[in-house]
């Protein structure tokens, strides 16, 4: 006998399917994947590194026939290669930062929201205190603490960005903990941790995915912002932020140094925002 029952789809699978029908979002996914792949694998195709100065080509203009198709900067370093290497750092910090901040925020918020009462009040007051901390001063303090560099930047970004997901998930967890299936889990003898991990967190998935997709561009932007100010990624290591900063310094004479990293950053942010938009359309429970 042929089994004619259709395969059961979870809400998650249905939502993914709806996302896949959003053309703009799918184009953004493809473009973003292309940019990410060229940033991560592209630099291997060059016979030199982004820190090698080529003294025959200092400040060379765009010339597709030369070994430096997009020219070089004032030190004779290949611009395209530096932009790709900078993208590596910016994208890595963006995604890792968003995932870490999201992870911490989701757990914290789910615990606070499910526990309720005094625990909840204590945990959320702490979040509010941290919200009040001036961001730039915090980054400077942390870079003093970690001796500057990527770790300090990463820590500072995660430290400030886990707060909002915590607040969002806490609100969701609060309403979920009043649903009867949570009571049923309690009646079945589940421990609070099991309930948080098996019943609360999975049901926050929609909110988390939507917010997380907005978090990635936020992290990339703040990395660029801090590197632009000079307290993020330091020369000679490239990032989109410090590349744009050197670009602005030379913008009166040579726009190219600003445009290449600037356009790539803008493209990535556009893609991420379109993806976030598509995810919200597909996952937002208010539509159903």
């Amino acid at each position, binding site marked *: 006998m042929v089994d004619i029952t259709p395969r*059961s789809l979870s809400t998650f699978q249905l939502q993914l399917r709806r996302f896949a029908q959003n053309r703009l979002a799918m184009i953004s996914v493809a473009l973003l994947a292309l940019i990410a792949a060229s940033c991560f694998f592209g630099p291997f195709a060059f016979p030199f590194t982004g820190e090698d100065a080529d003294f025959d080509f200092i400040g060379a203009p765009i010339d597709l026939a030369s070994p430096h198709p997009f020219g070089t900067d004032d030190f004779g370093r290949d611009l395209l290669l530096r932009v790709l290497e900078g993208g590596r750092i910016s994208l890595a910090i963006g995604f890792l930062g968003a995932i870490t901040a999201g992870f911490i925020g989701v757990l914290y918020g789910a615990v606070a929201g499910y526990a309720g009462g005094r625990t909840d009040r204590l945990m959320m007051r702490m979040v509010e205190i941290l919200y009040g901390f001036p961001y730039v001063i915090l980054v400077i303090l942390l870079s003093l603490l970690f001796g500057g560099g990527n770790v300090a930047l990463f820590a500072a970004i995660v430290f400030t960005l886990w707060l909002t997901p915590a607040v969002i998930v806490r609100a969701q967890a609060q309403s979920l903990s009043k*649903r*009867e299936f949570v*009571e*049923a889990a309690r*009646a079945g003898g589940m421990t609070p941790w099991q309930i948080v991990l098996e*019943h609360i967190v999975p049901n926050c998935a929609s909110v988390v995915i939507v917010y997380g997709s907005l978090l990635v561009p936020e992290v990339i932007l703040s990395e660029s912002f801090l590197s632009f100010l000079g307290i993020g990624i330091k020369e000679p290591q490239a990032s989109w932020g410090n590349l744009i900063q050197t670009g602005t310094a030379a913008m009166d004479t040579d726009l190219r140094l600003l445009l290449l990293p600037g356009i790539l950053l803008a493209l990535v942010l556009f893609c991420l925002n379109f993806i976030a938009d598509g995810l919200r359309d597909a996952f937002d429970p208010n539509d159903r």
Partner: protein
Amino acid sequence: MAELYTVSDLHLSLPDMTRKPLLGAAPRLEILKGLSFTIPSGEILGIVGGSGSGKSTLGRALIRLLEPTAGSISFAGLDITHLPESRLRPLRCRFQMIFQDPMSSLNPRQQVAQIIAGPLGVQGLDHSPARIADALDQVGLPRSFAQRYPHELSGGQRQRIGIARAIALKPEFILADEIVSGLDVSSQAQILNLLAGLVKDLGMTLAFISHDLSVIRRLCTRVLVLQHGRIVENAATEQVFNYPQAEYTRELLGSIPLPDPDQAWL
């Protein structure tokens, strides 16, 4: 018949958050005001009362989802009144609950098989696919439902899953809190017949909370009538329906809609 539950002078109050002052504790609202009764094993006890009479609170105290403020509850000779959660956990498979709203009593992200297996796994009981199939058989659902998600099921089917989840643990006591109030009339009858059959076959004790007296009359052997957190009547079903003692019970009985309207009215 041995007593499964002995409840004496049960009090329960909850903080009234609507009148909480800015600082300090919220005033406590007394919901159960000294209830004493017993449930012999094998009995089907109906608990009725209007909105806010404390019937759901009483139910949740019986299976210790709420902790009483005073008085005592003993289950099968064990005092469970103030037992901490860690000591209650191994007991939980002995008293289970079926919930009111079949929409919200099943986790929307879990397949039926996971929903039924959840408590079984926690209690360290067999939760193999064969056991799940068994549980589905018992509530009259096809085995293929194991892979479905709650949003693919109708209200009646969901309520059957809720029943399967509770009875899979083979509890001695089941609390059914308004389990048919969210269903249409024909599913109501099916669910009630199913539950009555299961209770009889498995020899369980059942407490059935409802505001629908015709349902209580069909199902229950004894009726507990609650008003404002107090017991106003506790007697065999026939007696309550034929010779109601309390004024409040007569009021409730008078509010049952008759299936056969007055001929003269037509």
